[in-house]
């Protein structure tokens, strides 16, 4: 009997903890529903993954939606498209008025779009456009254009050409990265005097991943003139690897995303020279604005390309504190 009592205690404890967690987290996420403003509108935001940039996107959508008095429910599929489909299906069960999907690096998730289409619920894609075209609207950047701008900047800085190292984020099917690298490569190849060396290791979009990839490239090449990483985090890693190797003065660094630390580094006038301004706040807010027009029955564009200016020492001051995460 003694063990049974213990079993009961464990069961009750677990039950209470579970219930407590449920209620606790439920409270933080739901209350705006009772605001009188526009109580009826609920929006589900399905995120394929969260992380620096995509967390910024989620926050931008939630904030912009709540500013309009909407209830915004955000999910995280942790990189699993099957889970994202489940999240969308759950939104449909809940009877949301609209669904916003941040598909991160996936080129398509037809099951999610088909489910929403069958239920007659509008879908706005933010950042990532899908190959399937049965979404209602898309708001995002032109990644190839961003890459090309960086490439052209590199050409102006190195008129005699040189060795350019490219660090990719991966995984191999990630078309965001593929398009950024394609843009840079296009500009460098057009110049005709660059040796382009793509790191075989993926940097995983992180600073430590970028550092490892760069360490291997530094070992392979005795002279590197410029490094382009598919995002700022990896470029910081590359910059740190070059510093460790005592080769900081030999090269300069470029990235994309327009992260605040990158903007500050550019303002310092060191060897971090350019980034693309890929603003999750702008994209997320515009995604919500487009959804609002759809729900109100007003005219809207299906394809909305957001402006992604390049940030260099010339214009960095105007972007101070306007970038992504701190």
């Amino acid at each position, binding site marked *: 009997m003694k063990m049974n009592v213990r*079993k009961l205690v*464990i069961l009750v404890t677990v*039950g209470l903890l579970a219930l407590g967690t449920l209620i606790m987290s439920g409270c933080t996420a739901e209350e705006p529903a009772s605001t009188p403003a526009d109580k009826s509108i609920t929006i589900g935001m399905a995120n394929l993954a969260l992380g620096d940039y995509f967390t910024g996107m989620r926050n931008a959508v939630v904030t912009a939606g709540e500013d309009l008095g909407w209830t915004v429910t955000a999910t995280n599929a942790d990189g699993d498209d099957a889970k994202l489909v489940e999240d969308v299906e759950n939104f449909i069960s809940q009877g949301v008025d609209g669904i916003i999907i941040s598909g991160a690096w996936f080129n398509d998730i037809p099951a999610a779009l088909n489910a929403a289409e069958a239920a007659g619920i509008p879908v706005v894609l933010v950042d990532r456009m899908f190959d399937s075209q049965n979404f209602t609207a898309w708001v995002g950047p032109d990644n190839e254009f961003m890459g090309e701008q960086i490439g052209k900047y590199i050409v102006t800085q190195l008129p005699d050409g040189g060795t350019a190292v490219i660090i990719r984020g991966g995984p191999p099917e990630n078309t965001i990265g593929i398009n950024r690298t394609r843009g840079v490569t296009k500009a460098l190849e057009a110049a005709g005097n660059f040796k382009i060396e793509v790191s075989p290791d993926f940097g995983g979009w992180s600073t430590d991943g970028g550092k490892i990839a760069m360490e291997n490239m530094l070992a392979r090449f005795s002279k590197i003139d410029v490094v382009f990483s598919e995002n700022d985090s990896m470029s910081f890693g590359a910059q740190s690897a070059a510093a460790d190797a005592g080769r900081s003065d030999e090269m300069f660094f470029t990235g994309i995303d327009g992260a605040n630390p990158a903007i500050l580094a550019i303002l310092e006038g060191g060897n971090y020279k350019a980034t693309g301004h890929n603003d999750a706040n702008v994209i997320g807010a515009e995604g919500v604005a487009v959804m609002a027009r759809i729900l109100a029955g007003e005219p809207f564009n299906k394809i909305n390309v957001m402006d992604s200016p390049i940030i260099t020492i010339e214009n960095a001051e105007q972007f101070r504190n306007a970038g992504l995460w701190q």
Partner: protein
Amino acid sequence: MCKINPVEKTPLPTRFVTIQRGRLEVAGNDVTMHFIQFLVVIALALIANPLTNGVFFTANNFTNLMRQMTTTGLLSLGMLFVILAGGVDLSVGSIVGFSAIIAAGATVNWGFPVWVSFLLGIVTGACWGLISGSLVAWFKLAPFVVTLAMMTFIRGLIYVYSEIAISTRAIPSFTALGSAVVFGIPISTMIMAIFFVIGAVFLNRTPLGRSTIAIGGNRETVRLAGISVEKGIITTYVISGICAGVGGIMLASRLGNIQPSLGGSHELDAIAACVIGGANLAGGKGTVQGTVMGVLILAVMNNLLSLRNVEPYWQWVLKGMIIIAVVLLHSRSQKRG
């Protein structure tokens, strides 16, 4: 040498249902854990409805719930066999991805009929199981290490085959299996249910199935009884491979766009479902019914938390807590037994 029968029939008790020393027994089998699991599912469902403003008990949500548990269910069934025989199969997530992308590639790139592609996906799943099982059984390598290696090996091959996603959304016959619903029940869930029934019959009613449990319980005894331990172990990995292959095809058919990363970390959910269902990772203990309960608990919990708009991070925290609580419960009841 004396022969020992590894699977002895327990004599029937005088009463069909008994409660002794805090244990619930039906026909002589201790079903206390199943009863508790059942209560957990019912409790989850009961708190789910008011918490989700009535959304939980809707036909649409039930269809979703059933569809969502299909792949995890199949993987868990296969995993149960491996765990029963004292192993573990970390490669099932990669097999899901491999079967899915091969089936899609065979249809889209090679022009195979859809049913042949599906079959190919399942057969390759079985082959991966055969390789893992053989390495574990014949070369006496640790299952964790072998299947960890197979996990990365197979995932690497997926990317070698296709760096980019393969789209099958324009092929209705490919996507039919994953999306078809009959009387509110997805076809894929029906297939999963059939697998569970076959699995239960195989495990409890066939000599090979019974010997699987015995292998995990006491390998030497099985050997002395003249049963091939190696054959038994390999069979469990092949079953796991087939289940993962079928799971991969269901998922591919449902999604309509197959990413090379598909199925990543699904093996962990399968292990979790088995453990919650009462399987012992040391082998020899676990039932199909328990695993069904484990799959149900995970699916209802995920669905409930998702509908309730609980931050995904809290979902991970809760899942971890539940697994530890269940393992605690099991270790208590086993010490007692």
